[in-house]
């Protein structure tokens, strides 16, 4: 579970300082599906970076408590420890899919297992299973350019989930997809969330996506509010 207390994030751009998050305090229990909404520039991605151990807040604390790591304060850990937590606990899905263009679908999924060690054979087996789970069992050897947008996002979801993370963070996962594909991807994410007991946090503009969540948060000008 997450416990954020008075999280403030400021970006210094020369003389100007932008406050992307302002005194955000929120608690997210394990297994919850949360949607984060808000206007552009409101601070959604910044909040996701705090949750995903990609960056540290300027002030305040971000506690992440998981089964096998215990409690970690993401605001005070070093880069390599944050990297370690990302490798084991957190899965990411991005709006632009962010697949590596020269690697096949299966190899892209394997990149998530590389920091965890293990044999090549084990990695190959797990990545094939993950792709099977997102319905791409017959596309293991395809390059991203040979897949449709929806299929690429499925590969990205397989990459995020292949390591069995505690948390899955998605930033506009359907932002680049048409409505039909959006629903397919959301069905898939929701199904996996239910099946694996993940904490799923989705940043979205799309109220159709947000409506699926148990809980909806809103960020505007760095200030977080809970929507009923």
């Amino acid at each position: 579970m997450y416990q954020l207390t008075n999280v403030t994030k400021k970006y210094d751009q020369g003389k100007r300082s932008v406050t992307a998050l302002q005194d955000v305090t929120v608690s997210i229990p394990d297994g919850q599906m949360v949607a984060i909404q808000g206007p552009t520039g409101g601070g959604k991605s910044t909040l996701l970076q705090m949750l995903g151990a990609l960056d540290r807040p300027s002030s305040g604390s971000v506690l992440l408590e998981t089964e096998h790591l215990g409690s970690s304060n993401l605001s005070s850990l070093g880069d390599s420890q944050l990297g370690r937590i990302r490798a084991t606990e957190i899965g990411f899905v991005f709006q632009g899919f962010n697949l590596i263009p020269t690697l096949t679908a299966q190899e892209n999924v394997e990149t998530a297992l590389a920091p965890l060690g293990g044999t090549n054979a084990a990695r190959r087996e797990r990545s094939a299973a993950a792709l099977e789970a997102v319905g791409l069992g017959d596309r293991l050897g395809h390059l991203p350019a040979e897949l449709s947008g929806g299929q690429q996002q499925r590969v990205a979801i397989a990459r995020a989930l292949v390591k069995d993370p505690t948390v899955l963070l998605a930033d506009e996962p359907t932002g680049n997809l048409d409505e039909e594909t959006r629903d397919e991807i959301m069905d898939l994410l929701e199904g996996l969330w239910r099946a694996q007991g993940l904490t799923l946090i989705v940043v979205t503009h799309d109220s159709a996506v947000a409506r699926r969540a148990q809980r909806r948060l809103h960020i505007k000008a760095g200030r977080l509010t809970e929507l009923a």
Partner: protein
Amino acid sequence: MFYTYLRRELAGRRKQTAIVAIGMALAIALVIIVNSVSSGVQLAQASVLESVYGVGTDITVSQAPAAAATPGTGNGAPQRFDFGSADGAAADGTTTISRSRLTAERGTETFASTGLDSVRAVPNVSAAAATLLLSNSTFSGALPTRSQGATRPSTGQGAPSGQSAETPPTGGPDGAGGSSFSVDSFTVLGLNPADAAVGPLSAVTLTAGRSLASTDAGANVAVLDASYATTASLAVGGTVVIAGTDFSIVGLVSAATADSATAANVYIPLDVAQSLAALPGQVSNIYVQAASSTDINQVQADIRTALPAATVKTQADLASSVSGSLASASSLVSNLGLWLSLIVLAAAFLIAILFTISGVTRRTREFGTLKAIGWSNGRIVRQVGGESLVQGLIGGVVGIAVGLAGILVINIIAPTLTAGASTAVQAVGRGAGAAGGAGGAGGAGFGPGGGGFGAATQAATQSNIVLTAPVTVSVILIAVGLAVLGGLLAGVIGGWRASRLRPAEALRSIA
């Protein structure tokens, strides 16, 4: 994962891989070729020097001629041949005259042979030998014997019919009153047969007969340069005349490397040379071998102190005395070749670095994503470094192949370089044969027809050396080393850039 990713990147970004590898390949091929040609040129220089100065000669000692040479000492003075009225043998209306002079070779100053003892007293001198380089010039010719009738003015005694005074001249080599002269010269090197371990004869190959032995001291025996013997039609068992003295030819020698001449035309015992040239106790060169190559500078300095008037040169100094197209090749290789390969190498490194940096910049989101999913900086640096290293190695392999092909082409073409060693030892070619004597119808009374002097051609020792470009393991290792260095340099810089990327870059909206 490392190898899969590496392979996929190199194969998937062929253009970048090709450009970096080609740049590296060109540079490495150039380095290999320049390196190989330059060692070929060095070998050629060494072989030219060896044929002139002998193997194992580390230092030579000579004495520069005094600035204002006194006339008649033989140095720089015009050669004079004086003939008395009784000289020459007359027969058949033709007088033949011949005179030989044995003098110190032009440009050489002789000095007391006690210098050899001083040199031997210098620490770390393992061997030393003294030589006396001389030039034997023979002026020979034939002219018509002067007769009373021919010299008398035609108007002196009445010749009514006007026919007697117009009697055409006879005699002379052409039988028509003409004359013919030639100057023939060759170099003579006096050396102590007992000191043959170092010096000009240490590097030669005996092609006929025997070499000079210690027991030859004081004897009129000579060893000839084989190519000189051929030109002069001399052979072992024959006789060569030096300063009017007959020497029996006991052996022929040629330079160990084909096609180059030895230091002199004729080799005789030192004591004989000294007495014939009237230079008792004088020598012109001392050849010195140091105990080890690290002692050369110390030995040179000590000899300079012991013999302040002497010119003391090391092999390195002597290499600069090699002239001809070999010298041009040498300076071309060491100047242009070196700079060109350095510039191309720097350009190739720069290309590799710039392409790696631009590749990292282009892949910002890719590396950001990998960091976001937990890749450590080390893993990413390794990946970028590995890519650059392999690109460099591909360039290295291609470069070695291209370089070896270039060397092969050079060795097939086998360019011939000419080289002259033009310092103290300057062999004088045999004078060209007699010309002239064409003066057919002489003037009235004073009868000598036109006379011609054979021009004595003076040619410095000329060697033709075929340039071979050797391939050594060290050249290949240098090439591989450079490829690795270039790849690593680009990889380290690119990897450092990649490691500084923030993982949050992954979340940036698509550019």
